[in-house]
C-alpha cells in the first residue's frame, strides 16, 4: 500500500503542468533525435542537459527521461523507414522492420514497434515500481564472468539460430569483435591494431561507422543493383482505418515477441554495463527460438519487430535501476543522467529512495506518463514517416546517402571515419553479394567493448582458468546454454544426415 501511495503522489507530480509540458516536449525531441541516423538518446540527453538547470531537479530528470524514452521509440523509425539503425539498440529492429517496409507494410512495422515499445516500457516500469531494491541486489551479483557469459549467449543466438552459412556467420562475428578492439587496449593503455599505421585508427572504430557503412551505403547499393534502380517500397498507404487494422494485426502477430522482449529486456537492462542493446538482441534471438515459425524471422515477422522494440524500451527503464539504487549507470545515456543528478546535488545510491523519495517517485511516475505520451506522439507521426517512404526511390536514395554521411560525421566528427563508412559500405556490398551476413558484425562491434574486458577480468580472477565460466552458479548455466546454441547447427545437421541414412 505504501508503494501505491508513493506512486500516486509521483504520478500526480508528473502530471503537474510544467512536468507534463516537459514530458511532451522531451518525448517529441527524443523521437526525432532517435529517428536521425547517427544520433541517439545519448546525444539528446547530453545536449539538453544544461537546459535542465532552469527547472527543479525532479522536472529536469523527468525531461531527460522523456527524451530517453522518445529516442528509444525513434530508433525504430530509422530502422524501418531508412533501413539504417539509428542507434545500436535498434539494430535488431532492422532485421524484420526493413523487410516489412520493402513489402509495403512499413505502417505495420511502425505500429508494431510503437505498441511493443509501449508495453515494454510499461511492464518495465511496473517491475521497477515493485522490485527496485531487490533487483538492485541481484544485479550486484553479476560480475565479469556472468556478463561475459551473457555476451556469449547473445552471439550464440546468432550462430545457432541464424540459418545463414555458419562459417560466414562466425567470420562476421569475429570480424566485428576485432574491429571493436582497434584503438587502445583499455586495460594496458597501449595502442592496438593501428591498421596500416594510419593514425586515424588510434581513435578506434565506432559502432555507428560500421552500421552506417553497412546499412546506409552497402545495403542501398545492393538494393539499387538488385532492382536495377526500379525500387519502390510498394507505395504504402496510411489511413486512420489502416492504422487501426495495423494495430489489430500488430497485437495478433506481435504479442509473443512483445512479452518476451518486455520481460527479458528489463532483466538484461538492469545488469550494470549490459544495457538495452544486448537486451534487444537476446530478445530477438529468444523470440525466434521459441517461435513456431522461425523461418519467418528476417523476412518481415511482426514478432521480430516487437521483441527488440519491447526489449529496448524495457531495458532503458531497467538501466535506470542500477543508476538510481547503486549509482552504477547501465548505459551511456544513464551515465549522463547520473552526472546530471550529481550536478543537481543528488547522491544516487541505496539511500536515494529514503533521502529523496519525492524525487524518485516523481521520476517513476513520469515513466508511466512518458510512455503513454510517447506511444500517442509516435502513432501521430507515423503518417509523416510513411509519407517519406512514398517518395520515388531516386529521391529517397540520395536523401539516405546524405543522412548517412552527415549523421556519420555528426557522430564521430572525423573525416577518417567518413572514409571508413564509404569503405565499409563498398565492402559490405560485395560481402552481401556472396551471402556473408553482416548484422552479426554490427552487433559484435557493439558488444565487443563489453565482452573483452569481462573475459580478461574473469581470466585474471581465475588465474587463467576458463572453468570460471562453468563453475559459478549464474555464469555456469548461461555458458552451457550458449554452448548448446552454438552446437545446435551441428546437432541439426547430424540428425538430418541420420534421417537421410535411415530413409
Amino acid at each position, binding site marked *: 500500500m505504501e508503494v501505491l501511495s508513493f506512486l500516486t503522489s509521483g504520478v500526480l507530480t508528473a502530471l503537474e503542468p510544467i512536468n507534463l509540458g516537459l514530458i511532451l516536449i522531451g518525448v517529441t525531441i527524443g523521437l526525432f533525435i532517435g529517428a536521425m541516423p547517427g544520433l541517439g538518446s545519448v546525444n539528446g540527453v547530453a*545536449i539538453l542537459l544544461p537546459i535542465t538547470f532552469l527547472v527543479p531537479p525532479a522536472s529536469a530528470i523527468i525531461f531527460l527521461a522523456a527524451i530517453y524514452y522518445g529516442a528509444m521509440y525513434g530508433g525504430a523509425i530509422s530502422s524501418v523507414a531508412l533501413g539504417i539503425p539509428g542507434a545500436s539498440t535498434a539494430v535488431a529492429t532492422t532485421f524484420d522492420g526493413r523487410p516489412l517496409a520493402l513489402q509495403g507494410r512499413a505502417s505495420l512495422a511502425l505500429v508494431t514497434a510503437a505498441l511493443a515499445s509501449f508495453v515494454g516500457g510499461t511492464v518495465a516500469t511496473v517491475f521497477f515500481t515493485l522490485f527496485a531494491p531487490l533487483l538492485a541486489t541481484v544485479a550486484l551479483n553479476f560480475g565479469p564472468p556472468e556478463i561475459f557469459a551473457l555476451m556469449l549467449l547473445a552471439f550464440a543466438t546468432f550462430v545457432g539460430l541464424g540459418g545463414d552459412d555458419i562459417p560466414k556467420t*562466425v567470420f562476421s562475428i569475429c570480424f566485428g569483435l576485432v574491429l571493436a578492439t582497434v584503438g587502445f587496449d583499455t586495460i594496458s593503455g597501449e595502442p592496438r591494431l593501428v591498421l596500416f599505421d594510419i593514425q586515424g585508427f588510434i581513435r578506434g572504430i565506432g559502432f555507428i561507422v560500421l552500421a552506417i557503412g553497412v546499412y546506409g551505403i552497402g545495403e542501398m547499393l545492393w538494393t539499387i*543493383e538488385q532492382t536495377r534502380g526500379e525500387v519502390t517500397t510498394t507505395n504504402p498507404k496510411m489511413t486512420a482505418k489502416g492504422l487501426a487494422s495495423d494495430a489489430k494485426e500488430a497485437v495478433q502477430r506481435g504479442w509473443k515477441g512483445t512479452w518476451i522482449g518486455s520481460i527479458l529486456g528489463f532483466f538484461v537492462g538492469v545488469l550494470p554495463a549490459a544495457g538495452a542493446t544486448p537486451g534487444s538482441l537476446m530478445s530477438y534471438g529468444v523470440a525466434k527460438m521459441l517461435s513456431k515459425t522461425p523461418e519467418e524471422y528476417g523476412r518481415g515477422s511482426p514478432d521480430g519487430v516487437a521483441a527488440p522494440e519491447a526489449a529496448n524500451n524495457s531495458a532503458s527503464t531497467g538501466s535506470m535501476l542500477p543508476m538510481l539504487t547503486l549509482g552504477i549507470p547501465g548505459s551511456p545515456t544513464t551515465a549522463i543522467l547520473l552526472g546530471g543528478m550529481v550536478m543537481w546535488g543528488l547522491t544516487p545510491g541505496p539511500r536515494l529512495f529514503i533521502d529523496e523519495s519525492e524525487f524518485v517517485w516523481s521520476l517513476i511516475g513520469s515513466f508511466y506518463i512518458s510512455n503513454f505520451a510517447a506511444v500517442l506522439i509516435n502513432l501521430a507521426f507515423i503518417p509523416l514517416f510513411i509519407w517519406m517512404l512514398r517518395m520515388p526511390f*531516386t529521391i529517397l536514395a*540520395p536523401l539516405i546517402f*546524405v543522412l548517412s554521411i552527415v549523421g556519420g*560525421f555528426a557522430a564521430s566528427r572525423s573525416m577518417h571515419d567518413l572514409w571508413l563508412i564509404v569503405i565499409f*559500405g563498398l565492402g559490405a556490398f560485395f560481402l552481401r553479394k556472396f551471402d556473408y551476413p553482416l548484422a552479426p558484425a554490427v552487433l559484435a562491434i557493439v558488444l565487443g567493448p563489453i565482452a573483452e574486458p569481462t573475459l580478461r577480468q574473469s*581470466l585474471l580472477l581465475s588465474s587463467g582458468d576458463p572453468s570460471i565460466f562453468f563453475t559459478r552458479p549464474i555464469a555456469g548455466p548461461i555458458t552451457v546454454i550458449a554452448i548448446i546454441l552454438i552446437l545446435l547447427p551441428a546437432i541439426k545437421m547430424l540428425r538430418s544426415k541420420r534421417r537421410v541414412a535411415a530413409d
Partner: protein
Amino acid sequence: MRQGEISLAGILALFSLYLMWKSAELPIGYMRGQGPGGGFWPFWLSVGMLLSCVAIAWNWWRGKSPASVSDEPLMDSFGWLTVLHVGGGVIGFVALISVVSMYGAVCLFLVYYLRFLGRHSWVLTLVLALLLPVLLFFFFEGAMQISMPQGLPFTQPFFDMMYDIIY
C-alpha cells in the same frame, strides 16, 4: 560467382593473417598477475576469422554454398555501371566535403543524383539541393551545436551569413 567466392575467401584469409600479425605486437598469452595480454583477444579472434575462411573454402570445394555452384557473373555491365555511378557519386560526395564544406557537398551530390541519375526536373532538383543543406545547417549547427566541415576558405562568407542568422 564461383571464382569470386574463393577469391574473396582468399583475400579475407590474407586479411585475417595480417590482423593476427598486427595483434601480436602486444602480448597474446597469459601474463602472470596481469591476465591475458592486450593482443590476446584480437589475436584469437583473427584465428577464428582465418579458420572460418578455411571452412568457407572447404564448403566451396564441396559445392555447398549457392555461389560455389553458380556460373553466373558477379554482375552484368548494367550492374557494374550502376555501382560505379552510385558508389562513385558517394565517393565524390565525401571527397568534396574538404573542398566545398559539408553543406556544399550535400548540395552538389543532390544535384548529381537527382538531376543526372534520377532524371528529375531542374526545379525539384534545385529546391531539394538548396533547401536540404539549409535545413541541415539549422539542425546541426543551430539546434545540435555540431559543427560540420567548412571546406576551403572561399566558403567562409556563406558560413558568416548563416551564423549571423542563428546567433
